[in-house]
């Protein structure tokens, strides 16, 4: 269960006194201030808050895409802000899967090739890579779209390919930055179903940034960020996927 204090030990994600400042000219902007958070393996956390509250920045710091100005981020006992660029890249490929609002697929690669991208960095053989990619695409229901290019897919399908790319290397943590922000409600629900399934059935720890309260309700825990501080620790709510609510 997620905790906002700093007393937890052995949590998968341990954030301590996290500060992040940006400089705009001579002006210093405090994006995150003294943030503490513990998150256990398999938890589904939603971050909500107004634009500029630091949600994406926090996600980037957890994913090792950005470095904190002060404080620490420990994932599975490893202090990631201490890792060098090369080690951080390797660590990210093993532990983190990213899902973006705009999908960010590579347009000249097919769905299969996009999903395979993280596996090129591993020592897996071609048949092994193929098996992993096929499994990931099957999980998101796109086994019949492997040879399609992003331009040949709908927005929802593109996001599903992006999810397959995020999970193909079997990461511990999924970081989802407004994954339904560019989708209609039906497609968004499908994406949230998949993300919920990944958390519930596959034990992935999920961090979801969203402006959408409906999407946030899928999470175990909703955390509100405002002006760089975690203000509110919302009541946990059991994961209830659309599929479970209305089985087809």
């Amino acid at each position, binding site marked *: 269960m997620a905790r906002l204090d700093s007393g937890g030990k052995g949590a998968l994600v341990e954030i301590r006194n996290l500060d992040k400042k940006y400089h705009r000219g001579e002006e210093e902007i405090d994006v995150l201030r003294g943030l503490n958070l513990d998150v256990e393996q398999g938890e589904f956390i939603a971050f909500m808050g107004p634009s500029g509250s630091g949600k994406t920045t926090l996600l980037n710091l957890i994913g090792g895409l950005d470095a904190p100005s002060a404080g620490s981020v420990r994932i599975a006992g490893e202090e990631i802000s201490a890792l060098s660029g090369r080690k951080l890249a390797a660590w990210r490929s093993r532990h983190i899967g*990213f899902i*973006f609002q705009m999908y960010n697929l590579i347009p*000249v690669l097919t769905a299969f090739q996009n999903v395979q991208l993280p596996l090129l960095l591993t020592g897996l053989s071609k048949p092994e890579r193929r098996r992993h990619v096929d499994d990931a695409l099957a999980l998101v229901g796109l086994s019949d779209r492997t040879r399609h290019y992003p331009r040949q897919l709908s927005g929802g399908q593109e996001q599903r390919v992006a999810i397959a790319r995020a999970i193909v290397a079997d990461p511990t943590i999924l970081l989802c930055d407004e994954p339904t922000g560019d989708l209609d409600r039906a497609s968004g629900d499908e994406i949230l179903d998949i993300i919920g399934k990944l958390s519930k059935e596959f034990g992935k720890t999920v961090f979801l940034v969203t402006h959408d309260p409906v999407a946030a309700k899928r999470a175990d825990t909703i955390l509100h960020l405002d002006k760089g501080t975690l203000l509110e620790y919302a009541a946990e709510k059991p994961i209830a996927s659309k599929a479970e609510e209305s089985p087809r």
Partner: protein
Amino acid sequence: MKYFHIVFVNLRRKKLRTALTIGSFTVALFLFGVLVTIKTALSSGVDVAGADRLVVRNRISLIMPLPYSYRDVIRQMPNVAEVTFATWFGGYYQDMKNFFPNYAIDTEAYRKVYPEYIIPDADWKAFVEDRQGCIISPPVAKKYGFKIGDRVPLQGTVWTGTWEFNVRAIYDAQREEMITPEFWFQYKYLEEQRPFYKGTVGWYVAKVDDPANAVAVAKTIDDRFSNSPSETKTETEKSFAAGFANQIGNIRLLILSIGSVVFFTLLLVTGNALATAVRERTAEIAVMKTVGFTDASILGLVMAESLTLAAIGGAIGLALAKLFTLSGDPTGGMLSFFYLPTDSLALGFALALAAGAAAGIIPAVGAMRLKIVDALRRV
């Protein structure tokens, strides 16, 4: 190898831009190949020049003759092993465009001074015994279909009119560079038929007994004929050939200048194309870094793109240049050894890769340094 697919699809995404960039390399390397061929042609005489041969010519100009009487004087000088001579004829076959170097040679000593030319004894004998006999090189035989026994008319330019010859030999040579379009005939025939410049030769070639004596012998010859109506200028065959090549300017500097401008332009064109490509793919590069691609691997992918463009364009350009040179001397005889050597092809390919690396390095470093967060924010 598993990354090459990414390089390949990136090159294919803007086909026109890729084609134009490859085209830039193709044009540049084609030009390089042709320029090197011209340089090789002009300096081929230097490369095959004998260290033990001195060329004696009129001090005023190569086109001014020397008295025939000098032959015996030079022959009797110390350290001179043999002397031969030749005279430029400047004829053409049927049409002015069918020009190839042709000159009258001394039948007594020419073969001794130039042993590297391979002519069967029987053929040489037939040549010597026929006043109108001539010896041709394989390129001339091939181009005009001449064979031994054919009667060949040449139109004279210095001594006008039609001159008839009989092909008595087709020479071979110990080195490929020596097999250039040439046509030799007997000096005696020229001397008998020409109306002016009788009793003169174009230049002498003196073979010294030891290359170490070449400088001293050259000085002796020039001193001997100083203050005479026909003063001489004697130099080693290599210097003579180099001087002949330099008559049309400093070829090396010319080629270097043209080559530098072309390659600099190539760097700008390719660098700009790659920089644009990288800028367009900012978000994709950020995503690749996000999923675990290191800075070094991103650098490598962009560099691989640049080198692939260079390799393809360079290979096509050099292949076209080689094909062009295989079609023969386009000047009709001015560049008799028109050949693009293999080592120059290798040098050209290396230069193309170097240009590709130089053009790619700035965009590649830019991609490498791209901060994921900044790049994603731009999307």
